[in-house]
C-alpha cells in the first residue's frame, strides 16, 4: 500500500470517528448546524480524496451521503431519527469499505445500491423508505409514505417520537414527516445559538491539527525502552563520577535531563479517556434501540489521561460493562415507570485520577443485581458449594459474577448473557495490573469500578532480599510489613502440624518462606542470627505472610516481560532492572499463594467476619482500629492513625498530672481515659502501647493495653428518631465507643496544668 493511501485511511478513520461523535450528539440537538457542518465536512473530505485515489465505490457512497447531508446542512431537511439511523449506516458502510481497502488494498466488490437508494429516499421528505437494519434477513418491502399534506396517513406503528433523542422504536417506523414540520419552526431559533457554539471548537481543532504530529506507537515504545536504558546508564555514571568534583555539575545535569526526558516520553504516550468514551454514545444508542430501553448517557472526566496501551486494553472491558448495564441493569421504560422511576434510565461513565491509578466507573440506576439470584445461580452452576454460598456476605456474593461461566441473564440474548461477560472484564483488567469491583443495590442500580494503573510500564514495588538475590514485590498487594527481631524469632512462629503460622494482632496468618519456596528443602523457621521480615500480602482475597531475609528501598520499577519458559514457572510476573543495574525478578503474590498452598480458608474467615457487618450499610462504613484499654474496648478511626508505638511506661512523663510523651524531641499529649497508665503505675518496666493519631494539624497519643483488630464500623440509628448517633459505631456486632480525638485538650502554652481536665471520651464497649 502506498504512503498516500495509508495517509488517506488514517485521516478518513479520524474523520469518521469525529462523524460518529457528532451523529450521536445530533440526535439530541438535531438543529445544531455546527454538528451538521462537521459531519458534512468528514464525508466531503472522503469523497474528494477517494475521487483522487480512484476508489469509485467509496466515492459513490460518499456522494450519496453528501447529498443528503447537504440538504440537512441547508436546513431543507431535519435530522430525525430515521435520518440519523441512515447516516449511521452510511458511516458503517464507509468504514467497512475502508477496512477492505486496508486489508486488500482494493475496495472489494460489495454492493451498496440498497444503502445508496435509502440515502436518496431520505432526501425527499415524506418519501421515505424505512431504514433497513444492518443485517436484515428479509428485504424491507418498499413503500411510499403519503405526502406531507396527509400526515395522518403516515404509517406509524407507535406514537411518533417528538424528540428525536435516543428513542426505542421498532424497525418499521417511518420517518414521521409531521415531526419535521413541527421542529422546523424551532430551527431558526436554535440555529443562531448552535452557530456560535460550533464556531469556537472549530477554531480550536484547526489549531490543534497544525501543532500535532502522528507518531507510530512502536516508535514510542522503543523510545520508552531507550529512555529506560538511559536512566540506568545515568545511574551508573552518577555512581562512577561521585568522587570526582569536576564531574558533579555535568552528571547532575545529565541526571536532570534524563528525568525530564523520561517524563516527556511517558507523557507522549498518554491519551485522554475520551478516546474510548467517545465510542460509547453510539453503542448506547444502538443497544438501547435494540433492547427497547430509554437511556441517557452521562460522561464525566473525559480529560483524564491514561497510557495508550492501557487505554486499548480497557476498551473491551468497558464496552462489556456498558452492554451489561443496558441489558441487565436498566429496565424497560414500563418497568421503570411501574417502579416509580423516570422512564429514562441513566448510564454514567466516570473517569478520575486517584494517585497513581485511574478510576473508571460505569454506573446505572437500573434494577441492580439480585444477590439471591446470584447465590442461586452460583450454586446451580456448581461454582460454589451451597454451604459456602449461604455463609457468604452480600459483597462477596456479588464478586461471584466475575467467575468464569457465570451469567444471570434468564435468556441468552445476543447482546450479552453468553456467560463470557464479567470474567473477561476481570481478566482483561487484571492483566494490566488493575482491579475490578462491583457494587449493587437491588432496585437502585449497579456500579462497576475499574482501577487502572497510570502506566503499564512502571509500578511501585518493594525490593526484598532472599536466597542472596533481589526480588520486587508489587506494592499493590502489600498491606503491611512485620519485623521479627532475632530475639523473638524462636517463639514467633506457631504450628498446626507442618503449617507455619504467625499471630498478627491476635489473628493467625499463614506464613510462606520465600527462600524455601525458591530453594525447596530445609525447614521452615525464622533465622535467629539476623532480622526476619514478614511482608503481609493480600492476593485475590488470600492473605498470607511472605517471610524474606531483608528489605531494601521501595522503588518505581520498569516492568520487563519474561520469556515464556520463565513465565511458565508461575512465580514471576516479569523482571526489572534496579537502580544499581542489578536485575530483579518481580514476584507474583497470587501465584505464590497458590504454589505455597495458601487456600481460601483465610477468605472464608474474612467472609464470616464481614457477614456479621453487612446488615449495617457497608458501602458507607468506615474502618476502625479496635483497641482495648483496661478491659474495655474502644475504636479509633483508622484514617487518623499514624503509628502504633510500643514502649515502656517509664517513658511517659507528666506535666502537672497530664501524661505526655517526649517523642523524637516533640511533645505528644497522651490520652488515658481508659486508665491504662494508672493500672501499671507501680512497674516502670511495663510495656504499654500508644496509638499515635492525627487530629487536625496536631498529633495525639492514646494509651491502650492491646491493639485488637481493624474492622469496618457500621452506623447506628437512634430508635424512634432514626437519627444517626455520633461517638459510637457498630464494630464486629458490638456497640463500641469511638475515641474523641478532638476532645483531647491541647497542651498548655506554659507547663501549668489546665483546670478543665475532665473525662473526655466514652469508651464503654
Amino acid at each position, binding site marked *: 500500500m502506498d504512503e498516500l493511501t495509508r495517509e488517506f485511511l488514517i485521516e478518513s478513520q479520524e474523520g469518521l470517528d469525529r462523524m460518529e461523535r457528532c451523529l450521536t450528539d445530533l440526535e439530541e440537538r438535531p438543529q445544531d448546524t455546527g454538528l451538521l457542518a462537521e459531519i458534512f465536512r468528514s464525508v466531503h473530505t472522503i469523497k474528494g480524496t477517494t475521487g483522487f485515489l480512484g476508489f469509485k465505490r467509496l466515492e459513490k457512497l460518499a456522494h450519496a451521503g453528501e447529498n443528503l447531508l447537504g440538504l440537512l446542512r441547508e436546513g431543507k431537511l431535519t435530522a430525525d431519527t430515521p435520518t440519523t439511523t441512515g447516516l449511521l449506516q452510511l458511516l458503517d458502510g464507509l468504514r467497512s469499505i475502508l477496512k477492505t481497502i486496508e486489508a486488500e488494498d482494493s475496495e472489494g466488490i460489495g454492493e451498496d445500491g440498497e444503502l445508496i437508494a435509502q440515502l436518496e429516499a431520505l432526501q425527499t421528505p415524506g418519501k421515505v423508505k424505512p431504514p433497513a437494519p444492518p443485517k436484515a434477513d428479509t428485504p424491507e418491502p418498499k413503500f411510499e409514505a403519503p405526502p406531507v399534506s396527509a400526515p395522518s396517513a403516515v404509517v406509524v406503528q407507535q406514537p411518533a417520537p417528538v424528540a428525536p433523542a435516543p428513542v426505542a422504536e421498532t424497525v418499521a417506523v417511518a420517518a414521521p414527516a409531521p415531526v419535521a414540520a413541527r421542529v422546523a419552526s424551532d430551527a431558526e431559533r436554535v440555529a443562531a445559538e448552535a452557530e456560535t457554539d460550533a464556531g469556537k471548537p472549530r477554531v480550536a481543532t484547526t489549531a490543534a491539527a497544525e501543532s500535532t504530529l502522528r507518531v507510530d506507537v512502536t516508535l514510542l515504545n522503543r523510545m520508552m525502552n531507550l529512555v529506560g536504558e538511559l536512566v540506568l546508564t545515568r545511574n551508573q555514571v552518577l555512581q562512577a563520577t561521585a568522587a570526582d568534583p569536576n564531574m558533579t555539575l555535568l552528571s547532575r545535569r545529565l541526571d536532570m535531563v534524563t528525568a525530564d526526558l523520561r517524563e516527556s516520553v511517558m507523557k507522549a504516550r498518554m491519551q485522554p479517556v475520551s478516546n474510548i468514551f467517545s465510542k460509547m454514545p453510539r453503542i448506547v444508542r444502538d443497544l438501547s434501540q435494540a433492547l427497547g430501553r430509554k437511556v441517557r448517557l452521562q460522561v464525566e472526566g473525559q480529560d483524564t489521561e491514561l497510557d495508550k496501551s492501557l487505554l486499548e486494553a480497557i476498551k473491551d472491558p468497558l464496552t462489556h460493562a456498558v452492554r451489561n448495564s443496558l441489558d441487565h441493569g436498566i429496565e424497560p421504560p414500563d418497568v421503570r415507570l411501574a417502579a416509580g422511576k423516570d422512564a429514562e434510565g441513566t448510564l454514567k461513565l466516570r473517569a478520575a485520577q486517584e494517585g497513581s491509578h485511574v478510576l473508571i466507573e460505569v454506573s446505572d440506576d437500573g434494577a441492580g443485581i439480585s444477590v439471591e439470584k446470584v447465590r442461586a445461580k452460583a450454586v446451580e452452576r456448581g461454582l460454589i458449594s451451597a454451604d459456602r454460598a449461604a455463609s457468604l456476605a452480600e459483597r462477596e456474593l456479588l464478586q461471584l459474577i466475575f467467575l468464569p461461566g457465570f451469567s444471570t441473564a434468564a435468556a441468552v440474548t445476543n447482546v450479552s448473557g453468553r456467560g463470557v461477560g464479567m470474567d473477561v472484564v476481570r481478566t482483561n483488567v487484571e492483566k494490566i495490573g488493575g482491579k475490578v469491583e462491583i457494587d449493587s443495590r437491588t432496585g437502585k442500580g449497579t456500579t462497576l469500578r475499574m482501577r487502572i494503573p497510570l502506566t503499564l510500564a512502571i509500578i511501585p514495588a518493594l525490593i526484598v532480599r532472599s536466597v542472596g538475590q533481589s526480588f520486587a514485590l508489587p506494592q499493590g498487594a502489600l498491606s503491611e510489613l512485620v519485623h521479627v527481631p532475632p530475639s523473638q524469632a524462636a517463639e514467633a512462629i506457631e504450628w498446626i502440624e507442618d503449617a507455619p503460622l504467625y499471630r498478627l494482632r491476635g489473628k493467625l496468618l499463614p506464613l510462606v518462606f520465600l527462600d524455601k519456596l525458591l530453594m525447596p528443602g530445609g525447614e521452615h523457621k525464622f533465622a535467629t542470627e539476623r532480622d526476619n521480615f514478614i511482608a503481609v500480602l493480600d492476593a485475590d482475597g488470600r492473605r498470607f505472610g511472605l517471610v524474606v531475609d531483608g528489605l531494601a528501598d521501595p522503588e518505581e520499577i520498569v516492568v520487563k*516481560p519474561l520469556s515464556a519458559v520463565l513465565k*511458565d514457572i508461575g512465580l514471576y510476573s516479569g523482571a526489572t*532492572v534496579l537502580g544499581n543495574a542489578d536485575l530483579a525478578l518481580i514476584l507474583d503474590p497470587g501465584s505464590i499463594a497458590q504454589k505455597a498452598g495458601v487456600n481460601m480458608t483465610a477468605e472464608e474467615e474474612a467472609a464470616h467476619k464481614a457477614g456479621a457487618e453487612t446488615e449495617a450499610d457497608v458501602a458507607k462504613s468506615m474502618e476502625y482500629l479496635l483497641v482495648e484499654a483496661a478491659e474495655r474496648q474502644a475504636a479509633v478511626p483508622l484514617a487518623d492513625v499514624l503509628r502504633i508505638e510500643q514502649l515502656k511506661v517509664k517513658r511517659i512523663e507528666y506535666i502537672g498530672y497530664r501524661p505526655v510523651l517526649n517523642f523524637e524531641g516533640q511533645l505528644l499529649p497522651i490520652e488515658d481515659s481508659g486508665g491504662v497508665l494508672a493500672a501499671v503505675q507501680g512497674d516502670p518496666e511495663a510495656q504499654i502501647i500508644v496509638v499515635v493519631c492525627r487530629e487536625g494539624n496536631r498529633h495525639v497519643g492514646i494509651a491502650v493495653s492491646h491493639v485488637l483488630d481493624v474492622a469496618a464500623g457500621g452506623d447506628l440509628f437512634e430508635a424512634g428518631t432514626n437519627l444517626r448517633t455520633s461517638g459510637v459505631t457498630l464494630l464486629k456486632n458490638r456497640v463500641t465507643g469511638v475515641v474523641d480525638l478532638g476532645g483531647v485538650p491541647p497542651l498548655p502554652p506554659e507547663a501549668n496544668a489546665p483546670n478543665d481536665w475532665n473525662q473526655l471520651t466514652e469508651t464503654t464497649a
Partner: protein
Amino acid sequence: MSTAMTTTAAGAVVPRKDKAAATASLVEMCSVRLGQTLFGVPISHILEIVGGARPQPVPLAPSFVGGLVHYRGDVLTTVSLRQLLGMPPKEGTQDILVLESKGGCFGLLVDSVGEVMTVSSADHEPNPSILDERRRALFAGAYKLKGSLMVMLDPERLDPMRLGQNFAA
C-alpha cells in the same frame, strides 16, 4: 539450514576449492569454545556478542536456563550450553551470544567466543550416530576443518521455548 552467502566477507580462512565446491555455498561461522570442543554458530543469526557477563540466576527455572541478563533495555533469558551438555558450571564471567530465533531473542552462554570462520557446506556432515540422543537433538552436524571438527549449533534448536518442551528437566 545454512544461509547462502553470495559474497565472502573479509575471511582469513580461504575455503578449499574442489570440484564439489562449485555447487556448495560458503557459511560464516562464529567459533565458540566450550571445554575441548569447538562449536560454530552461523553469524547470520547472531545479533551481538556480549563479553564478561554475570547472569542473574532464576530460582526454580529449568536447569538449562543460565539466568537473566540486561540487554539493551530488555531482560534476556540465557541458555547455558554447559548445563545443556551436562558439564560443570564455569567459575567467573562468561560470554553471551545474543541470538535471534522465531520465538524472539535469547542469549547463549559460552566459555569464550573465538574468531569468525568461513566454512563450506561441502564439508558438512550430519550428526554421527555415536552421539547420545540429547546431543543428536541439539547439534546440527559438524564441519570438517583442517585438523579439527566444528560442531554446528542451530539457534532454532537452542531456543529456550523449544528446549523447555524437549528437556523440561
